[in-house]
């Protein structure tokens, strides 16, 4: 039981980590809560379902197209909605509400196009689990943990080593100073949307393979993602990853004390505790959180 919960926590943490790191990347540069990140995930998961299960395209082709689609969707939302709002100097609360509206818009669109019933991608037919220290883990779940680990390391290196990554951190740290040295903040915003949303697209495929698709899946994942981001310290990508695993463990071990239906509620209780006592998270820097 203990080791099974450990494995489950690890898988949940890996998925939340992908959601939260993309979200946190966008938050760190753009400084607002991109609610529609959940919509990106849900819509890309459905897009993947459409390509792979409905049209019957090759798995890898569908996967690549889904990730490209996710990037494009994130880029588009930034260009069509957020950029216009920024241009008229809207505050981050306005951007948050706009993101919320986008999330609802896409969820309703999914509901309209695909219906309310649950969809399964069904790529891996035989889900024969491997026994591992008394816990059962399917090959797919191993892939999920491995992919997310590789991606998160790659993201970390990208932020540390590449020019774009450095520019992103510069904008995140001080936008005005970054612009003075010739970094275009708008360009960086756009790039963080593209990269963050691509990670969301990968998360969408993994979630789609592991769980079923439902129109409201985006909201749920999004909430887990930002809870994880807040726990770890919002705007800090390593923090988001740390927070994701903590959340995964808290949720799964919480089932020992509570009925499993309350799994989602555990996340919010943790969110509340952090907002009350440590709103800047574990790794976050204490600034601006009350502004």
């Amino acid at each position, binding site marked *: 039981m203990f080791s099974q919960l450990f494995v489950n926590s690890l898988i949940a943490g890996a998925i939340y980590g992908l959601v939260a790191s993309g979200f946190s990347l966008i938050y760190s540069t753009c400084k*607002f*809560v991109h609610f529609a990140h959940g919509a990106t995930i849900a819509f890309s998961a459905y897009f993947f379902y459409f390509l792979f299960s409905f049209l019957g395209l090759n798995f890898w082709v569908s996967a690549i197209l889904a990730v490209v689609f996710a990037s494009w969707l994130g880029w588009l939302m930034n260009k069509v*909605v957020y950029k*216009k*709002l920024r241009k*008229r100097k*809207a*505050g*981050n*609360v*306005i951007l*948050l*509400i*706009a993101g*919320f*509206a*986008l*999330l*609802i*818009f896409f*969820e*309703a*669109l999914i*509901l*309209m196009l695909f*219906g*309310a019933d649950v969809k399964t991608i069904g790529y891996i037919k035989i889900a024969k689990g491997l026994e591992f220290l008394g816990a059962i883990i399917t090959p797919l779940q191993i892939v999920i943990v491995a992919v997310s680990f590789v991606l998160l390391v790659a993201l970390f290196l990208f932020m540390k080593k590449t020019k774009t990554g450095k520019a992103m951190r510069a904008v995140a740290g001080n936008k005005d100073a970054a612009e003075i040295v010739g970094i275009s903040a708008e360009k960086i915003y756009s790039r963080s949307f593209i990269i963050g949303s691509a990670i969301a697209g990968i998360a969408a495929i993994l979630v789609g393979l592991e769980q079923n698709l439902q129109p*409201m899946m985006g*909201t749920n994942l999004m*909430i887990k993602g*930002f*809870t994880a981001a*807040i726990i770890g310290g919002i705007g800090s990508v390593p923090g988001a990853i740390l927070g994701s695993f903590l959340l995964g463990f808290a949720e799964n071990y919480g089932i020992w004390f509570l*009925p499993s*239906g*309350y799994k*989602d*509620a555990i*996340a*919010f*209780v943790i*969110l*509340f505790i952090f*907002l*009350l006592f440590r*709103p800047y998270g574990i790794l976050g820097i204490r600034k601006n*959180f*009350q*502004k």
Partner: protein
Amino acid sequence: MISAYFIHLLILVGIYAILAVALQLAMGFTGLLNLGHIAFYCVGAYISALLALAGWPFWFCFLSAGIGAMLFGFLLAIPTNKLKGDYLALATLGFSFVIYAVALNWTGLTRGPLGLPGIPKPSLFGFVFSNNLSFLILTFIIALTSYFIIKQIASSPFGKVLEAIRDNELAVRVLGKNTFKMKSYALGISAFFAGIAGSLYAHYITFIDPSSFTLLQLIPVIAIVIIGGLASLRGTVIAAVVLVLLPEPLRFIGFPSSIVGPARQMIYALLLILILIYKPKGFYGKIELE
């Protein structure tokens, strides 16, 4: 047939108007971006439904719904007191999810996803509001009363303090006002009216389940408040009428309800985005967010 349907729509207008006017007090006047508003509505609906099913009279259920929701409002005010902007929005949203999870999982009380059927129609002094026209009149009276009470509150000295808190909380504190107390009153009163709107909804539809209280149901309310204009009660009422009636032609063109339902949410979301971009103060608003 159409007129019966029209009455149904007007009842919904009334319920949404109460919800939106209540949210206006917290969001427009006090500047609290409360995304947990739908949770108060949910609490009110469940309290009223459970009491009514236990045999209590309508007026008692109705008031308990308001007061119960108000207590939750005070409760929410405690942890969120110091939060602003993004953080407040996320915390209140989290609150609405906790309430939703409880409604879904506390099956002993709420019957979870099965919902509560057979909620009696309201009756007062022996008169049962069983047909929709009488219910419309009841809704209308309650909506009007709520509107005037909130209008009074907003224009009272207390309301002015709330507006001052919205504009500059620190300055109000410097003047020696207890802003925490003021904000929790505002949230409590706002929750009270959301609670009675929930009660009306429960007794009108006679069936509630947790799916009536999700984020999807929040979007029309937020859209009404922002499109009508922050801190404008008149705008809120006009927006409630327009927004509830606006997607209806879709139904008469002959789209099936599986299309009309999502289309309605999409229209609200789209309108909200357009307003935020092109007319950030809404139609009658006095202030912009933040």
